[in-house]
């Protein structure tokens, strides 16, 4: 549990203004705050024309992890309900795109949009019963759901659409640059949504649920509908990311699409490392971990996941609030709602 | 063991709370050997928090707790049992799936094996109804029976100090009487008792001295009969009831 609520944190920051960041000259700070994001955006925008296909693909993957870490954060980071079946939502999004393009010849734009909508609808429908289960029961139920979807998608019943266990292949018709920009937009959208939620009444209500759901109910918050809204929103963004990811993979097999130890673990670690319930935490986590991952992946295939596991444990035990609030507590970063 | 006037427990200005919320702002009390001390006060006064802090379930932020002149501040609850302190928590939720005998086995945790049989014998003599139901599971017993079982469990070690948190909560009037009679009976066997009670009048009637807490601070203290007779205490904490004659009180 985070001991400092945002309001008390703000007050603490006012009382002791010796934050490292604030020692920097005011004009320099303002210039940095405006120019850095713009430079970054510009660099990312021209990347496909400047860099190698490898770099573009890697950045595409960073976008994918930003989008998924943000989406996971949006629901689980804010409500405290651990979504262990996250890969199920990615899978539904990915399959929607694959089926629409592969079986019905839809344009990728339509297919990816539909992936968001279908996954949102799916999230809404399963959210109604699933969110009745609390705490650990929700976590276990979601784990069961993801594995159940894997089996369901390989069954004969679904084979006309999903291709069963043999999988479904398709040609997305997207160039690498198109995939890159589209995923970049989804990452940006996810971050924007989390930012808006973080700074709204809705976000505060979600945090109240995380701290004490019973108290939230007593305060008159309809916790069920708030959780459902957050879950549906999370599903929508995940669906978009999953749909575009399908266009990158081009070939979906249930056995390799629904891998909990990968597609659920990684967004969780990234979001938790950056800071659950923060706006920029998942972004920091995703960028950092993709780089670490890429650096050690080639030489130590198994070690790279060991490190993910170890980081998760260290964070939970020693800085459960994540890196951004940790830096804020140490007065290195300012307490601003932009983070 | 110890002489009659010896101070067994001394709680010195403890400050304690949960999370950011401070509940006790410096509560002090003491208890002499063979005394029954009642702590009363309105809801939210921090009565139960005092007991939780004494028992070590909650660590005080400041202040000290001495038992038999030994500093026990911040000790773990299970360590206190070895010193001869027994605690009966509020609400009588004990071990629903364990039998009466198993409760006593657990109560005898700190006793050496050779002393247990004798200890069980004594407790069953004190609570004959439990002796008849050694094999019954606690979950199937009535509220009053469970309260007796809780007391029995706490008495197996023949404690020097028995701490009771709301012993009459939720019991029918018939059982309330029984419980308080039992407490006095236990006290007469030589056990000092510290209890927190919602039923202030009844608690003062069955105790030697009393403390009144309000909003986490000491408000009144003194011999129980004096508190019962005090106009202000009666108005504020005893529902203004008259006729609660101090005659029924235990002599200090």
């Amino acid at each position, binding site marked *: 549990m985070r001991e400092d609520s945002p309001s008390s944190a703000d007050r603490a920051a006012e009382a002791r203004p010796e934050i490292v960041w604030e020692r920097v000259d005011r004009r320099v700070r303002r210039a940095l705050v405006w120019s850095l994001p713009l430079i970054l955006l510009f660099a990312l925008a021209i990347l496909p024309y400047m860099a190698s296909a490898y770099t573009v693909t890697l950045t595409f993957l960073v976008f994918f992890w930003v989008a998924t870490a943000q989406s996971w954060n949006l629901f689980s980071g804010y409500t405290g309900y651990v979504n262990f079946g996250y890969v199920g939502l990615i899978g539904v999004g990915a399959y929607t795109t694959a089926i629409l393009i592969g079986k019905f010849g839809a344009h990728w734009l339509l297919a990816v949009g539909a992936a968001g909508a279908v996954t949102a609808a799916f999230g809404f429908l399963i959210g109604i019963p699933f969110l009745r289960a609390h705490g650990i029961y929700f976590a276990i139920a979601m784990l069961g759901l993801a*594995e159940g979807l894997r089996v369901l998608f390989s069954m004969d019943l679904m084979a006309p659409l999903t291709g069963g266990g*043999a999988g479904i292949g398709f*040609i997305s018709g997207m160039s690498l640059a198109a995939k890159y920009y589209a995923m970049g937009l989804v990452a940006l959208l996810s971050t924007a949504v989390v930012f808006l939620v973080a700074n709204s009444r809705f976000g505060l209500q979600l945090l109240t649920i995380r701290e004490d759901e019973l108290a939230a109910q007593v305060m008159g918050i309809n916790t069920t509908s708030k959780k459902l809204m957050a879950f549906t929103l999370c599903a929508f963004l995940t669906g978009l990311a999953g749909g575009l990811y399908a266009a990158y993979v081009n070939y979906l097999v249930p056995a390799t699409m629904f891998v909990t130890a990968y597609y659920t673990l990684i967004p969780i670690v990234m979001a938790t490392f950056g800071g659950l319930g923060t706006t920029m935490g998942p972004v920091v986590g995703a960028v950092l971990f993709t780089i670490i991952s890429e650096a050690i992946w080639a030489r130590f295939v198994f070690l790279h996941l060991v490190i993910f596991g170890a980081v998760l444990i260290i964070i939970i035990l020693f800085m459960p609030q994540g890196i951004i609030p940790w830096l804020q507590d140490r007065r290195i970063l300012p307490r601003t709602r932009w983070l | 063991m110890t002489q009659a006037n010896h101070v067994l427990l001394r709680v010195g200005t403890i400050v304690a709370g949960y999370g950011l919320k401070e509940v006790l702002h410096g509560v002090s009390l003491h208890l002499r050997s063979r005394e029954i001390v009642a702590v009363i006060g309105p809801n939210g006064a921090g009565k139960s928090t005092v007991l939780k802090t004494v028992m070590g379930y909650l660590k005080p932020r400041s202040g000290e707790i001495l038992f038999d002149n030994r500093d026990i501040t911040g000790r773990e609850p299970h360590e206190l049992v070895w010193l001869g302190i027994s605690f009966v928590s509020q609400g009588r939720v004990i071990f629903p799936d364990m039998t009466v005998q198993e409760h006593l086995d657990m109560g005898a945790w700190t006793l050496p094996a050779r002393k247990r049989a004798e200890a069980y014998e004594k407790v069953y003599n004190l609570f004959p109804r439990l002796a008849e139901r050694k094999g019954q599971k606690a979950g199937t017993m009535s509220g009053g029976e469970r309260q007796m079982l809780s007391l029995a469990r706490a008495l197996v070690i023949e404690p020097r100090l028995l701490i009771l948190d709301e012993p009459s909560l939720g019991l029918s009037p018939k059982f309330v009487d029984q419980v308080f009679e039992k407490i006095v009976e236990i006290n007469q066997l030589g056990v000092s008792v510290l209890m927190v009670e919602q039923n202030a009048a009844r608690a003062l009637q069955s105790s030697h001295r009393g403390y009144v807490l309000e909003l986490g601070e000491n408000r009144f203290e003194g011999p129980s009969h004096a508190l019962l007779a005090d106009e202000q205490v009666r108005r504020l904490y005893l529902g203004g009831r008259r006729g609660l004659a101090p005659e029924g009180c235990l002599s200090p």
Partner: protein
Amino acid sequence: MDRVDFLFSPYGSELTAAVASVIEELGVPTAASIVATLAPWKGKNAKWMTQFSSTAPLYLMGSVDLAIERAEAKNIAILYEDTPFPIGVADGLRARAKERGLKIAMDEKYDKALTDWSPLVSKARSLGAEFLAGGGYYPAAVGITRAAAGIGYRLKLLALVVGAADPKFVKDLGILAEGVAGSDIWLPSVKTRGFVVEGATIANEDFVRSYKEEFKRDPEYWSAAGYGAGQLLAQAVNDSLKRARKVDRNLTRDFLFNFSGETIYGDYGVVKLGQPDAGMQVRKQHFVIQWQKGKKEVVWPRELASAEPWIGWPR
């Protein structure tokens, strides 16, 4: 990837399937060396990647012939894991059984999370199957063999992919492995003519000899596949150099799609460019192997056999 002229493909069906589209988009000539699925080629109109290895349906086809001609089995039970490669193997078994008129007593796939095969093996027995074929990966080969032994199932022939060809199989199962048939794509002992490169012929035995000198052990099939694909690509590059005096992607690609011949790995030949399944392997053969006295023997096709097939399992 932007400045390469040709590629060896990654290991495994799913990885290859995933990179196939990238290869097609970038236009890099590729010989996919270890991939048994048809998915990257079937109906895909591939223009850059050819299949150097063989296809899943070919894996156990030979065992159907063996079961009919030597074991005189009247029917077959096909039992396979529900993932791309085993599905392909089962497709081959099914097609060959129909073609040869072998009755299909059971045709069932199982989920990859299955841990106990005995209900399915018992079902095959209750349906009177004499020839049990299929499988998935290593755990399935061991699991199915164990389950069959555990219920005392007597079969005329038991043929399983891929695990049954693994040397561990005989170590883990001991006597039970005796007589179990499997499929192998390449063995050090198989004779090939090999390529003529710059006047010298490098045949399979030459490859095996040099490998042994270098690494002090027998090469595994993936080493041979890699080497064979290397031979093929080297030839393609030579061809391009001969014609255009430079390494030209289009010329290299044309060679990969048009060449039909042999490398140390065995036959190579793919569906020609422009046809629906372009790039798909059509010539590479599989051998039926069988564990006999702790040794892996080739028992089918007859002309390559190193030993007579044993009929009846368990021994």
